[in-house]
């Protein structure tokens, strides 16, 4: 599968099925010797048409569908969606419900970061770490199953609150589980800070400096590892985060090692938050009655998913079905930065650099249909869409063209 074009430039397609990728995505890497001179990504293998499908389903049905945008951060998507709909409908959820949402959200972050740590270990040939973290991850999976009834895709949210209450015995269990997780996390922090092999393998790989992270719009741990202290839980608190005391973990390394440190640091913060939530869990009901039909209006909702900021937009038109739903998943924001990180790197680093943004392509695969102002519909190529975007922004005095130097999308193959 290696094709030679001009001089010594070699192009290597990676994906859609490739041992280093857990999801069907395709990267086209151009090499000069071992060095990467250009890289492009092609998205879309996982595009299922969820946004459109939401328009044909009632709000409740759409909620379960939205939860399945991504199975790893399913609670993030469903909470972001539910929050948006609640805002349109003017619902105020009970405090206990927002605490339970936050609890599940933090447990989800723990499971997601442990999962990532294992996958990162696997990508650098450290399979012991994979087995360790995935064993410990079962502790939090058990807790999630205990609280929600399912290991993944919890289905705990509903409009106006949550579907299940937690009782004292369950909270006791959660605290026990958190103790184990915290102890294990401390061990991983020791591994991450003492293990010379790990440090050497991950340092200076996939560099993304502070300014580049801001310029390319990176989010979540990818941005925080570059010293960008951006966290929706702090910046724009939702659910119960305003009541919680926690730190935004950042690092200065701005490479894959920094991203590892941020994630293990966040594991500890999550444990801390879970304890606070359990301690301060307010009494009261867990739902308020939600109308079946949602009034006309629109809302925008942000959620700090394990991978970064997740944005949902919902527009209602007074019926029981949403008129428009838009999802901007965190990987969509981070994938731009990958091309920059790969630039001038080594081929052998490709899997870990891609894995380091904790990509979730089932979240990311979106498609944009274009309705022209002059009437008629069509499909734009990437180039046309980008040109249109540049012109639209330029007409409003914003110029993004500096991005062009670093990010080029792969040609359709």
């Amino acid at each position, binding site marked *: 599968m290696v094709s030679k074009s001009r001089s010594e430039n070699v192009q290597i397609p990676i994906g*859609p*099925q*490739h*041992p280093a990728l*857990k*999801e*069907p995505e395709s990267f086209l890497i151009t090499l000069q010797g071992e060095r990467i001179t250009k890289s492009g990504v092609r998205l*879309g*293998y*996982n*595009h*299922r*048409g*969820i946004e*459109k*499908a939401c328009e*044909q389903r009632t709000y409740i049905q759409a909620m*379960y*569908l939205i939860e*399945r*945008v*991504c*199975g*790893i951060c*399913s609670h993030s998507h469903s909470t972001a969606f539910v929050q948006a709909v609640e805002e349109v409908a003017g619902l105020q959820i009970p405090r206990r419900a927002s605490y339970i949402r936050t609890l599940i959200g933090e447990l989800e972050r723990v499971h997601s970061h442990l*999962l990532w740590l*294992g996958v990162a270990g696997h990508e650098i040939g450290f399979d012991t770490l*994979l*087995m360790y973290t*995935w*064993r410990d*991850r*079962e502790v939090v*999976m058990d807790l999630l199953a205990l609280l929600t009834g399912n*290991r*993944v*895709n919890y289905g705990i949210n509903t409009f106006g609150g949550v579907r299940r209450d937690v009782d004292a015995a369950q909270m006791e269990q959660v605290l026990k589980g958190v103790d184990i997780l915290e102890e294990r996390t401390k061990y991983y922090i020791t591994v991450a800070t003492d293990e010379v092999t790990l440090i050497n393998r991950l340092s200076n790989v996939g560099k993304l400096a502070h300014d580049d992270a801001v310029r390319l719009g990176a989010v979540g741990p990818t941005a925080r590892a570059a010293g960008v202290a951006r966290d929706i839980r702090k910046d724009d608190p939702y659910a119960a985060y305003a009541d919680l005391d926690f730190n935004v973990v950042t690092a200065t390394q701005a490479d894959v090692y920094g991203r590892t440190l941020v994630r293990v640091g966040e594991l500890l913060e999550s444990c801390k938050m879970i304890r606070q939530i359990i301690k301060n869990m307010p009494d009261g009901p867990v739902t308020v009655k939600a109308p079946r039909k949602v009034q006309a209006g629109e809302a925008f909702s942000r959620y700090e998913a394990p991978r970064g900021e997740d944005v949902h937009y919902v527009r209602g038109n007074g019926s029981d079905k949403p008129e428009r739903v838009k999802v901007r998943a965190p990987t969509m924001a981070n994938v731009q930065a990958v091309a920059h990180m790969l630039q001038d790197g080594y081929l052998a680093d490709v899997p870990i650099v891609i894995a380091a943004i904790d990509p*979730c392509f*089932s979240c990311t695969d979106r*498609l944009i249909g274009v309705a022209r102002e002059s009437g008629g519909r069509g499909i734009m190529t990437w180039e046309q869409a980008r040109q249109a975007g540049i012109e639209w922004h330029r007409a409003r005095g914003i110029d993004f063209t500096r991005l062009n130097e670093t990010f080029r999308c792969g040609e359709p193959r």
Partner: protein
Amino acid sequence: MSLVSKIVTWARIKSPWVLHFNTGACNACDIEIIAALAPRFDIERFGVVLKGTPRHADVLLCSGPVTRQIKDRLRRIYEQMPDPKFVVAVGTCACSGGVFKGCYNVTAGIDTVIPVSAYIPGCPASPAAIVDGCVKLLMSLEKSEEQAAG
């Protein structure tokens, strides 16, 4: 049953190599497949080894409702696998389309594209169910080989 074919059957059933392919899944079934390989459920004790290329694989573990983009790739991967080969559909959406049924970009399940030997329902299919499905598949192979031999 001749000695050679007995050995072949034994080898085939004791160490099936699997390839995992995401055909548009929401990722939940995929992580549950990995969880089935991880220490708690440890499907490796049945000789199952995860492989990276279709040319080494006996069993294709598919999750997802098959998007239109991935359809041809799925067929190509299936064709690259050596005979005899088996396909396991993991998750409700791989079995029938599940929640994604009716979306404009998906077909309704793996069996609309390639033949499927075992279906594991669940959204997501729990690791225990995945282990169970794989063991059932292996047991059915043993039986059919015995029957073929008479």
